[in-house]
């Protein structure tokens, strides 16, 4: 048992940190750290810089641009990305659709999609949830009816993040209505420029427009865009959702948030002393730091065990990463809100919207403006990707054997 990072691991971390800070524009990293919306161009730019160094898809097989890292290296990479405010390589490309194609796709599909996916030459989005299929994903109703060498897709997807930027979408569609639930679903790739697709933005309570509804009306999709076997798309979905345990806790992200909170709270005055000197506040911050350190160690334990368990059976502890990770992320947004105090009240319209047509609050209070929207917006992290209630159901069944 050796519970410290090795010299090699620390060097690996330093190398990445230096690169991120030197090569990814500070303007982009600052926006991430201040929890402000990024423009598409900024995300593409950052992604391509990483890709240029082979840092966009390190977890992929070497043949497709992977780096053959250990799980620990993969974790260090993810933590450093998050800690330094580097936007994650587009997860729909590199963590969701890519791995599915690598695991289930044909050589033709791999050649056609993976390189452009890794380079973010194609922007992918996810067509899973539907108005009637949220926690109960298998209840989805969007149909893909085989007609010769095409599927004809009809239905509606929702909560589709950045669909407005995407030129491709990977969808779960019902190809066999007679089969029940999980059976009869297929994993299909659809070009967003195909006629019959309509994207409608959904404004979230923080004022942002990151999610959308996507409507499919008689959309013709070539059969070769089917991934894996027809009717067996649920296998792909399960594989996709079970993937990527090293980033889900978002430890690096929360570390950066806590540090920023402490910096701001050391400047904001509460009465005659900085807020950070207030016993109650600093103890709340310390309590989050403790939870976060525990989560980090839990994450380490999971990774260290994954090293040998090649059967890819995850450590039971891995199942708590999402729950604790989301709770801690939300706790940091609540702390930032407390730091902002009365200065959190002004609503600062994002670059992309001015519907109130009103003035902006003072520029030098800009740091406080994202505090409340961040708090509101981050309620999502305990909802998406399987709500924390669903996560608890899973643990009760899989780990505790209820």
């Amino acid at each position, binding site marked *: 048992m050796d519970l410290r990072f090795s010299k090699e691991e620390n060097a690996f971390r330093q190398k990445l940190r230096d690169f991120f800070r030197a090569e990814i524009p500070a303007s982009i990293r600052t926006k991430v750290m201040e929890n402000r919306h990024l423009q598409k161009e900024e995300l593409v730019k950052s992604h391509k810089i990483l890709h240029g160094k082979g840092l966009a898809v390190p977890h992929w097989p070497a043949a497709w641009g992977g780096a053959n890292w250990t799980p620990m290296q993969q974790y260090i990479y993810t933590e450093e990305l998050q800690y330094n405010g580097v936007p994650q390589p587009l997860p729909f490309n590199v963590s969701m659709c890519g791995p599915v194609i690598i695991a289930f796709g044909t050589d033709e599909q791999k050649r056609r999609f993976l390189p452009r996916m890794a380079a973010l030459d194609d922007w992918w989005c996810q067509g899973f949830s539907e108005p009637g299929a949220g926690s109960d994903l298998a209840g989805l109703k969007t149909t893909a009816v085989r007609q010769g060498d095409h599927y004809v897709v009809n239905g509606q997807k*929702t909560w589709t993040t950045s669909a407005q930027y995407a030129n491709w979408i990977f969808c779960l569609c019902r190809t066999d209505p007679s089969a029940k639930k999980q059976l009869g679903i297929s994993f299909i790739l659809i070009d967003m420029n195909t006629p019959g697709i309509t994207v409608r933005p959904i*404004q979230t*309570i923080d004022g942002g427009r990151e999610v959308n509804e996507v409507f499919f009306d008689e959309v013709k999709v070539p059969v070769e865009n089917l991934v894996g076997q027809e009717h067996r798309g649920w296998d792909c979905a399960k594989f996709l959702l079970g993937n990527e345990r090293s980033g889900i806790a978002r430890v690096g992200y929360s570390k950066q948030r806590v540090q920023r909170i402490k910096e701001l709270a050391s400047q904001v*005055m509460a009465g005659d002393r900085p807020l950070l000197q207030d016993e109650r506040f600093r103890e709340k911050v310390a309590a989050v730091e403790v939870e976060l350190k525990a989560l980090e160690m839990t994450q380490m334990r999971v990774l260290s065990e994954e090293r040998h368990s090649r059967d890819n059976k995850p450590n039971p502890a891995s199942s708590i990463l999402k729950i604790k990770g989301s709770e801690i992320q939300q706790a940091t947004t609540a702390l930032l809100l407390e730091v902002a105090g009365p200065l959190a009240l002004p609503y600062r319209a994002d670059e992309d919207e001015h519907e*109130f047509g*009103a003035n902006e609050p003072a520029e030098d209070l800009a740091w406080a403006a994202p505090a409340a929207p961040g708090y509101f917006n981050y309620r999502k992290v305990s909802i998406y990707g399987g709500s924390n209630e669903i996560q608890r159901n899973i643990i009760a069944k899989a780990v505790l054997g209820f």
Partner: protein
Amino acid sequence: MDFDLNDEQRQLKESIDRLLLDRYGDLNQRLGYLKRPNGYADELWQQYAELGLLGIPFAEEHGGLGQGLTETMIVAEAFGRALVVEPYFATVILSGGALRHAGNAALLAELVPPLVAGKLTLALAHQERQARYDLADTATTARADGRGGYTLEGEKCVVLGGASADQLIVTARASGARRDRSGVGLFLLDAKANGVTRRDYPTQDGFRAADIGLSAVRVGPEGVLAGPEKGLEVLERVVDEAIAALAAESVGAMAALHELTVDYLKTRKQFGVPIGSFQVLQHKAVDMFTAVEQARSMAYYATMMAGEDDAGERRRAVAAAKVQIGRSARFVGETAIQLHGGIGMTMEYKAGHYFKRLTMIDMAFGDADHHLRELARAGGLS
């Protein structure tokens, strides 16, 4: 003890509920009001005037209805249920409170009638960006001109209803250091007076607020609402009454959000059953109910104590209420969104708007932890 409404109070409640069901029943009506020039519906303001809502707290001799905090609580709770955006809080509760407690007979006689008639809106400009929740912290200066008047210099921020108000009540320091308890006066001035600049913007919960600049603004002797010797005392009284009103508004919003959530749990189907059939979600809804009822009890308590003359006893009771309201609102708001899932995160659905309003009420005049700290410093409740 008696928690029942008398007949007049019951009639008041029913008439407000009727009006708001008609004018706020559909979320899109509210979203429409937000886009108006002032960020609210002027014609509704007139209807409030006709209903007599604007005159509730003012003495009859000044042209008010001479009613009390209980009636204010009834209005505030109804406004919370409907998420009303008209500047009742800024004009009647805050500014009206300042007028009443400063006890300047001349200004009361001059301002209350038009206010009650819906012809005059006001805003209380006390917040400064360095002050956080310290009411005494005032950097804005009031320099005596030797003829009973003052010249104001400084900056105020997030002034509720500040841009649409006809007149402003401004706190400014005539003497002492920035955080001294003495030396702060309340001054009345025309919002368009020379030297007054206003930056208008929406707030997180759909209201409007303004940052206000004061540069060599002249106030005559008639504009001195409360002199430097008693300004803070008046302000603290006003804020305690305002917190009682916010508590009632918060309870109204919480109760409505809880009902909305329970309805959703009963109708939303997943896995072939209403999600309300899952015991975990039922118990969450029960804990929300408990939080709402505990908050309601403390809103009553705040209403009962906000009129207390003993400032220490009043402050402790109001702080205790703010603690309970804030904690209940935090739990009810976050849980409601969680139980709704994605739909609760959208602007098109009412839950998120309740959540945002509840969050901002918690932060108004100090959040739950701030008041817990103050309460504990004062020795607690018993």
